[in-house]
C-alpha cells in the first residue's frame, strides 16, 4: 500500500511542479492520436457510408473484415506498419520509421476500422426512406450524405470516442514504429512503460493520471454534446 500512496503523492507533486518534458509528451500524445482520429474520421465516414448505402457483392465479407479490424491487436498493427515502413520495406524510402508520422499511421490503422464499423452500423440503422425523402426534397448526393451524417451524429460521436480511446491508449504499435525516442516519439503510453521498467512508479502514475484525464475530458465533452442533442 505504501508504494501506491507514495506513488500518488509523488505523482501529485510532479503534476503540481509541472515538468516541461511531461507536458511535451502529453502534447505529442494529443497531436499523434488527434491526427490519427481525424484521418480515421475521414476514411471511416466515407468507408462506412459506402458500406451502408452501396449494395455490392461481397459487402458482408467486407463488413466482417471491418468488424474484425475493430479488434485488431495493436502489436500486430505495429508489426505490419513497421514492416511496411522499415528502411528495406516497400515504403522505406519515405524514412518514416521511428517518427511521429509512423505512429499516426499505426494509430490510424487501429482507429479507422472502429470509426468505419460504427459509421456503417449507425447509417444502416437509419430509415432507408429518409434518403429517398432527402433526394425528393432536392438533395444532391453530398447534401444527402451530410444530412444523414448530421442525423446520426450521436452514434458517430461514439465512434469518435471509441476511435480516440483506441488510438491514445495503445502502446504496442507506437513502441514498435515510434521507438519511444526521447523528445521525438515518446508519448504517454510508451513513457509509462519505460518508467515502470525503470521502477519509477511515481512518474509512471503521474503520466497515467494525465492519460486518464485526457481520455475522460474528451469523452466528457462528447458525452455532454450527445446528451444535449438528445434533449
Amino acid at each position, binding site marked *: 500500500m505504501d508504494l501506491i500512496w507514495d506513488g500518488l503523492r509523488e505523482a501529485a507533486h510532479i503534476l503540481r511542479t509541472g515538468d516541461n518534458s511531461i507536458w511535451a509528451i502529453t502534447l505529442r500524445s494529443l497531436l499523434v492520436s488527434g491526427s490519427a482520429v481525424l484521418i480515421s474520421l475521414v476514411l471511416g465516414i466515407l468507408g462506412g457510408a459506402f458500406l451502408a448505402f452501396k449494395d455490392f457483392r461481397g459487402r458482408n465479407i467486407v463488413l466482417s473484415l471491418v468488424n474484425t479490424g475493430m479488434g485488431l491487436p495493436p502489436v500486430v498493427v505495429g508489426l505490419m506498419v513497421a514492416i511496411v515502413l522499415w528502411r528495406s520495406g516497400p515504403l522505406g524510402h519515405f524514412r518514416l520509421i521511428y517518427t511521429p508520422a509512423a505512429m499516426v499511421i499505426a494509430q490510424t490503422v487501429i482507429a479507422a476500422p472502429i470509426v468505419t464499423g460504427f459509421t456503417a452500423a449507425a447509417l444502416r440503422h437509419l430509415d432507408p426512406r429518409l434518403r429517398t425523402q432527402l433526394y*425528393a426534397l432536392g438533395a444532391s448526393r453530398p447534401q444527402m450524405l451530410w444530412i444523414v451524417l448530421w*442525423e446520426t451524429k450521436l452514434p458517430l460521436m461514439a465512434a469518435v470516442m471509441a476511435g480516440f480511446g483506441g488510438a491514445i491508449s495503445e502502446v504496442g504499435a507506437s513502441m514498435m514504429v515510434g521507438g519511444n525516442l526521447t523528445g521525438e516519439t515518446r508519448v504517454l503510453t510508451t513513457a509509462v512503460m519505460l518508467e515502470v521498467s525503470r521502477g519509477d512508479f511515481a512518474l509512471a502514475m503521474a503520466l497515467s493520471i494525465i492519460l486518464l484525464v485526457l481520455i475522460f475530458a474528451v469523452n466528457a465533452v462528447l458525452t455532454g454534446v450527445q446528451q444535449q442533442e438528445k434533449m
Partner: protein
Amino acid sequence: MAPKLSLRDAVVRRRGTEVLRVESLDVHEGEVLGVIGPNGAGKTTLLQVMSLLERPAQGEVLYDGIRVRGRELSLRRRMALMMQDPLLLRRSVAENVAIGMRMRGVPPSERKARIDRWLARFDVAHLAQRSARKISGGEAHRVSLARAFALEPELLLLDEPFAALDQPTRETLLDELAGALGETGLTTVFVTHDRSEALRLGERVAVIVDGRIRQIGATAEVFATPADEDVASLVGAETIVAGKRVASADGIASVRVGEHVINGLARDGLPEDVLVVLRPEDVTLMKPDEHRPESSARNHLHGTITRVTLLGYQARVSIDCGFPLFALITKQSLEEMGLAAGQEIAATFKAHAVHLIARGPNEGGPAPGDVCD
C-alpha cells in the same frame, strides 16, 4: 401546351421481374390526378419514376415535353414528393421546413417568409421552434405538408400521405390539403388506396393494378363506368356478378344472372358474356311484405340478409339473392327497419345504376349461387 409530365412506354423491373409498365400517362398543368390501386400494385414505383428518383429500364419520361435523361437534379428541384411517413429530421420544425429550400438555394429572407406562411397555413406555426421529434403524428404530417408546399414546386407528388393517420385526423388534413391545392393550383399527383380520397381530391383518376394502368379518366366517369372487374372493385362497386345478356331493347340490356334478369343501360358492342357491376349506395331496401310503391326502378330482387356491418353512421347489408348483392344504407334506416341477418328483404335499383362490362376470358366474377359473406 405540352403536359407537365408524361410517361411513354415506361417499364420498371426489379430483379428481372416487371413491376410497372405504363404505355402512356400525361399529367396536365394545374390538374390533380389521383392514382388508386391495391397494395403492391406499383403506385409507389410509379411515383418514384415520376419524381425522377428511379429511372425506368425502358421507355421515357418527359418533363414539359422534353425528354428527361436521368435523375436530373435541376428537374428534381422543381418537384416535391411527400411520402407516407413525414420522416422529419432531428431538428426543429422550422429547420425541417427550411431544409429543402436551403438545398434548392432559396435565399434566407424568402425561406423565412415561406416557413412562416406555410406553418401558419397548416396551423402549426406555434410549433416552429419545437423539436420535430416531440410533436404528434398529426402535427408531423402538417409539418410535412408545409415542407412540401414551402418548396413551391411545379409538380407535387403525394404518396399515400395520410394512410398512417386515424380517420378524423385524416379527414381534417384532407380538407386542408384540398384547400391548399385549390389556392395554389399546383399540378398534383396523389397516390392512394382509399377511393374516397381520390373522389375528394382528384379531377382525374388513374387506376393501377398489377403494375399497369387499367383505366384513366375523369374521376366521376371512372367511378361510374369502371372498365373491368378489378377497377370496379377498386372504385367501390361491391356487387360484381357474371351474367349473360339475353336481350337489348330501347336502350336497356337484360342480363340473366342465375334465376334473375337484371336490367342495365345497353351500349354498343356489348357482348353476351358480361359482368353486372353495381355500387352499394345505389341499392334501396324494402321489407318484402310492404306494398311495393310504383317506382321507376327497373330492378326488383328478393333475397335473405346474410350480414349487417356497421360503418359509423352507415351500414353495409349483405344479401343473398342467388348471388351476393350489397347495399349501403344509413344507420338510421337500419334501426327504423329493424334489419338483421336471416330476414327476407327486397332490393331495388335503377337500370342507370347497373354498369355492364364485357367479361374477359379470365374474368368470372362471383358466379350466381355464391354465398355472400
